[in-house]
């Protein structure tokens, strides 16, 4: 529990906050240099996200998959692994869910649940492959998981073209209504925004993330192996089995994200010419969130709100999309380079310490 609380205490909370502000300032400077009004731009960004119900709902839609992939990356990280493959696992989740959604006929709710579970398992297995290759053959998971992203994308395109895409189309058939997980009442209230059960599920997953890692025997082993494989081996844990297990659970989170995105937002899966990008953004989210569940939810909110609000900046302030990418990149940069931020914060932190005594 301590670790969760830490997020809000003193330095660990102050540093990311300050990093975000620095990122926004750098973005503002870039906008000034480009001849745009940063105040108007940031105002438009906030208005875009919080200004009306529809956009707020859509921002939530944008944030949800980032929570899943953020959790996936952070879970692996907590167990000493670097899962760059959340992207591919996300795609496999989408594929599994859309396949069940289109090809099967099941009663409502059950259909959706089965589709989500299949999607999650596909993501888990996809990550498990990288875990297995590391455990059995010593191949670094960064290499395999990156490669599996591409394999996943083209595999998904192949399956789509071979089984799911009607002739002359570029996307699968729409999943059966029984598999759709839209939160219809809420969506109506939010002016038709594509909100879905994935959002509450993502928040539940953040709790599960915490419970697995810090309350269960499995989590104890996973963390031990991640922090010190030698001591874990000494203590009789199977390092290899735990690597596979860790990657599998990590992939489950990403797969869940993909499944919910398909069943909740699109209801179909299009042939992909590029990766959806949620997996890569998940790395940044995990980084911003300090690999803690609450941090990840907040990080996803920040990241999702910034990217969704980008359209508002373009629409109302004329700022091109590239500039909002500068803002996002600067925020990540300063969070990652927290040494810089700490250095800048030194006087403040020192003062606090004195007062604390």
């Amino acid at each position, binding site marked *: 529990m301590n670790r969760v609380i830490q997020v809000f205490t003193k330095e660990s909370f102050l540093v990311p906050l300050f990093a975000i502000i620095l990122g926004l300032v*750098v973005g503002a400077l*870039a906008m000034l*240099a*480009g*001849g*745009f009004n940063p105040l108007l731009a940031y105002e438009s960004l906030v208005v875009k996200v919080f200004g*009306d119900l*529809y*956009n707020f709902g*859509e921002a939530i*839609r*944008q944030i949800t998959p980032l929570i899943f992939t953020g959790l996936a990356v952070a879970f692996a990280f907590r167990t000493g692994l670097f899962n760059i493959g959340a992207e591919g696992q996300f795609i496999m989740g989408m594929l599994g869910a859309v396949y069940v959604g289109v090809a099967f006929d099941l009663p409502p709710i059950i259909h959706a649940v089965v589709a989500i579970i299949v999607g999650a398992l596909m993501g888990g297995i996809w990550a498990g492959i990288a875990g297995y290759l590391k455990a059995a053959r010593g191949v670094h998971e960064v290499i395999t998981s990156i490669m599996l992203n591409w394999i996943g994308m083209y595999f998904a*395109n192949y399956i789509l073209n071979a089984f799911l895409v009607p002739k*002359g189309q*570029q*996307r699968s058939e729409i999943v059966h209504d029984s598999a759709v997980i839209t939160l219809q009442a809420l969506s109506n209230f939010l*002016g*038709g925004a*594509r909100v879905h059960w994935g959002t509450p599920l993502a928040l539940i997953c953040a709790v599960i993330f915490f419970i697995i890692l810090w309350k269960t025997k499995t989590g104890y082993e996973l963390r031990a192996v991640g922090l010190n494989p030698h001591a874990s081996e000494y203590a009789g844990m199977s390092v290899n089995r735990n690597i596979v297990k860790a990657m599998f659970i990590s992939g489950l989170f990403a797969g869940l994200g993909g499944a919910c*995105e398909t069943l909740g*937002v*699109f209801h*179909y899966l*299009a*042939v992909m*010419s*590029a990766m*959806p*990008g949620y997996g890569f953004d998940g*790395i*940044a989210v995990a*980084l911003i969130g300090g690999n803690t569940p609450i941090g990840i939810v907040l990080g996803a909110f920040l990241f999702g709100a910034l*990217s*969704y609000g*980008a*359209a*508002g900046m*373009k*629409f109302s302030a004329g700022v*091109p*999309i*590239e*500039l909002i*990418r*500068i803002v996002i*990149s*600067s925020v*990540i*940069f300063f969070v*990652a*380079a927290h040494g810089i931020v700490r250095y800048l914060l030194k006087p403040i932190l020192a003062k606090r310490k004195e007062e604390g005594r």
Partner: protein
Amino acid sequence: MKKKLLSVLSVATLSLSVLVAGCGGNAQQGAQQGQNQGQEQAGGDQAGQKTVRIGMVTDVGGVNDNSFNQSAWEGLQKFQQDNGLPQESVNYLQSTSDADYVPNLTQFVKDGWDLTWGIGFMMADAVKQVAEANPDAKIAIIDQEVQAPNVESVLFKENEGAFLGGVVAGSMTKSNKIGFVGGVESPVIKRFEAGFIAGVKAVNPNAKVISVYTGAFDKPDLGKQAASGLYGQGADIVFPAAGSTGDGVFNEAKDRKSKGENVWVIGVDKDQSLTFGKEITLTSVMKRVDQAVERVSKDVMDGNFKGGQVVTLGLAEDGVGLPETSKDTVPADVLAKVEEFKQKIVNKEISVPEEPQE
């Protein structure tokens, strides 16, 4: 570590590029404003004319794709200038992923814009969804038919335009090998391919067209790779129909040209000789997205929006065709042949296939 480095680099390069783009953009805007003021003064007596606002949403290719997104935006800007409308009466939003289509379209619709364009067939589902959710809104889409009473669908007979490109290629090839680089395999791109092959065969039955699909509209590196393969196999003319993926084809051709190889590219969607130069651009199969955008936007301004209809633009409607600038690169006798075929197609003496014939 890598990730950090990448962020740093992207921050650096982005800020640079934006600075450059920002400065350039400003100068342009300034010029435009001057122009607008002049026009407004000139047309002062038409003061009663109501203003319209027209927005467009790009697909993931973005507004600088050197292809139909850019073409559409140019059309929209021309529409604004020609009609003496204030600058803020046209605007665009870029989509970074499929998920952005709906909220981007909705942004214009909810804000009460008079017409919202969805550029590209990839946006069909989103256009349909937004159209159904907002029956009062007027929406238009390029390249795909969407059945809704408030949507006007604009299709092109790409096969007719590509046929003329094929005639040029078939007449001018020396190796009798011609390449085609497609983006994502889709009906639109298939029409390009089919028309192109038919055009080549019509003038040069011995020429062989080799087709490659890259599976992407936004990957110049893949385009370069594909072109390298085609030129390597002996093709001397390559026709890309692949959005900004096609930029890579031009890039590869430029490299080879500078090494003395006599290779050519046939541009697509716009007159790409203006972008990539006449040394390598033989001609371009133009798809006048700009004209279509201008035309339908004008209709909306004049109250003639054709909701629920499909407008198909072919050679007869000047929706597709080769640019004027081709006369600098293509010999007159070939152009004469092109004109001859064009008339035959317009007169329906020839019917151009929509799918490649085996």
